[in-house]
């Protein structure tokens, strides 16, 4: 008996080890399969998201235009102490570099870079380059100052020296309405030109307004959709999703027709004698918020609707049966259960609204331009990638900071989309 029992015990022990090995092999295979399924998505996110944004942040601080195109001047300026004017050797290097850059057709890049800091110097650099190519021998200092007075100013050389570094703080500071003066001290941009902080705050304000308005409009609508019988609610859902079937530009243009001075809404108001002259609905903050709300409403509504659908009506009924008034039952039982959906919808709408630029450009007024419009113009019209990247990077960081504050208040693990 004992021998059989001992034998049985040994078999079980052996089986246990073999079982553990097989279990480990199966787990390993499962893990590899999961990794293989996630890998395409991971690569996609890496290539389309992480790497481009990394490039964008790098472009905001990296500008080799002076370092690459004026190498001798850059080296010569390392000796300069920043007071008065540089010595003859620096001017000789300047003349050589400008002549070489003119020949290689890269002098325009130098002009463009310096023009960001000293407005109007661009054409002077092009002319200096052309004339420097004709100089054969020194003394270069007098020759260069003779070609253009700007080379006799300490400011120009200070800017040139600062721009010689490949990693620069110029674009980021400029996007925050700050600058460095000739002594390297931080100074605010002159008020007549300082727009970026205003535009950032304006973008946040408009996005917040649109989020709140879509929430106020969307919550009752979601409640209606969630509590009506399926057939009616499906029909209403189609009407809510109808705007998605047309392009964003078409919808914005439709608001044009409605809101303009002799458009439908104003005609109706005048016909009803509610006003005797047309109200300025279009080209104003009102127009922008209305058009953006119309576009963003489904984004806020759908997560709230999905979460509401999962709330069993028996909870509120139980509260009512225990004596709670209708509003009290709603506020203490129903509303806290919908908070995950509200959090998801509001976050989605807020972040999407930060990126709007076509709608404010079409139906907004002169004080409605959002930061994305400036970024678009810097990229497409001005070819100023440093400024566009700096503005984009600051917007990204502002969004991340707001996201972390949001996390503190609501909790990311509480967000649900359905």
């Amino acid at each position: 008996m004992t021998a059989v029992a001992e034998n049985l015990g040994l078999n079980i022990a052996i089986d246990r080890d073999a079982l553990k090995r097989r279990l480990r092999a199966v787990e390993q295979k499962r893990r590899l399969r999961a990794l293989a399924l996630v890998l395409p998505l991971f690569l996609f996110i890496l290539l389309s998201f992480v790497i481009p944004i990394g490039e964008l942040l790098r472009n905001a601080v990296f500008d080799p235009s002076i370092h690459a195109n004026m190498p001798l001047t850059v080296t010569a300026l390392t000796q300069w102490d920043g007071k008065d004017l540089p010595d003859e050797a620096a001017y000789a290097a300047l003349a050589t570099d400008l002549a070489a850059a003119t020949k290689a057709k890269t002098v325009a890049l130098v002009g463009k870079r310096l023009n960001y800091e000293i407005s109007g110097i661009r054409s002077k650099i092009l002319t200096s380059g052309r004339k420097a190519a004709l100089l054969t021998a020194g003394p270069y200092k007098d020759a260069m100052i003779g070609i253009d007075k700007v080379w006799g100013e300490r400011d120009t050389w200070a800017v040139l020296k600062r721009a010689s570094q490949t990693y620069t703080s110029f674009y980021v500071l400029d996007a925050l309405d700050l600058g460095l003066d000739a002594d390297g001290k931080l100074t605010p941009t002159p008020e007549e030109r300082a727009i970026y902080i205003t535009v950032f705050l304006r973008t946040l304000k408009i996005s917040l307004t649109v989020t709140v308005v879509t929430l106020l409009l969307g919550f009752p609508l979601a409640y209606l959709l969630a509590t009506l019988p399926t057939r009616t609610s499906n029909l209403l859902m189609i009407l809510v999703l109808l705007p998605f079937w047309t392009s964003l530009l078409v919808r914005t243009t439709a608001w044009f027709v409605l809101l303009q001075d002799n458009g439908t809404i104003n005609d109706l108001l005048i016909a009803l004698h509610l006003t005797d002259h047309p109200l300025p609905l279009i080209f104003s903050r009102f127009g922008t918020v209305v058009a953006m709300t119309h576009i963003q409403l489904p984004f806020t509504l759908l997560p709230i609707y999905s979460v509401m659908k999962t709330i069993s009506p028996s909870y509120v009924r139980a509260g009512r049966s225990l004596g709670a008034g209708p509003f009290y039952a709603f506020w203490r039982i129903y509303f806290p259960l919908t908070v995950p959906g509200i959090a998801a919808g509001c976050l989605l709408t807020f972040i999407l609204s930060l990126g709007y630029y076509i709608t404010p450009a079409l139906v907004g007024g002169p004080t409605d331009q959002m930061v994305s419009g400036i970024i678009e113009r810097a990229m497409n019209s001005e070819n100023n990638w440093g400024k566009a990247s700096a503005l984009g990077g600051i917007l990204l960081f502002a969004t991340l900071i707001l996201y972390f504050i949001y996390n503190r208040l609501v909790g990311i693990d509480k967000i649900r989309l359905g």
Partner: protein
Amino acid sequence: MKVDKKPFKIVWDAQAPDYDWWAIPKGTPNMDAAYKFVGWASQAGPQADQTNYISYGPANKDATAKISAEVLKDLPTAPANMTNVLVQDQQFWADNGEQLRERFNAWLSK
């Protein structure tokens, strides 16, 4: 306007002309053909012929002689229409455009 017989007339005084350019991309394999085309398109004959299809003023001054008076009076480069021309200073705008735009936007925001 002419085809639809609308009662409008173009005022040529203080006209602000816009320009077009031919551009050859750097490093193109068809450099010779591109140059030949631009050379041909800049000749008086083709430039004058173009005005039969659209009233763009020819860049080649010799083309003006080849255009009929009927078409000529609607072109921006007709001598009669060129008495007061507002020429855009591209150099100025390249130098100062960005800063002026920032100032303008700052002023708009007030």
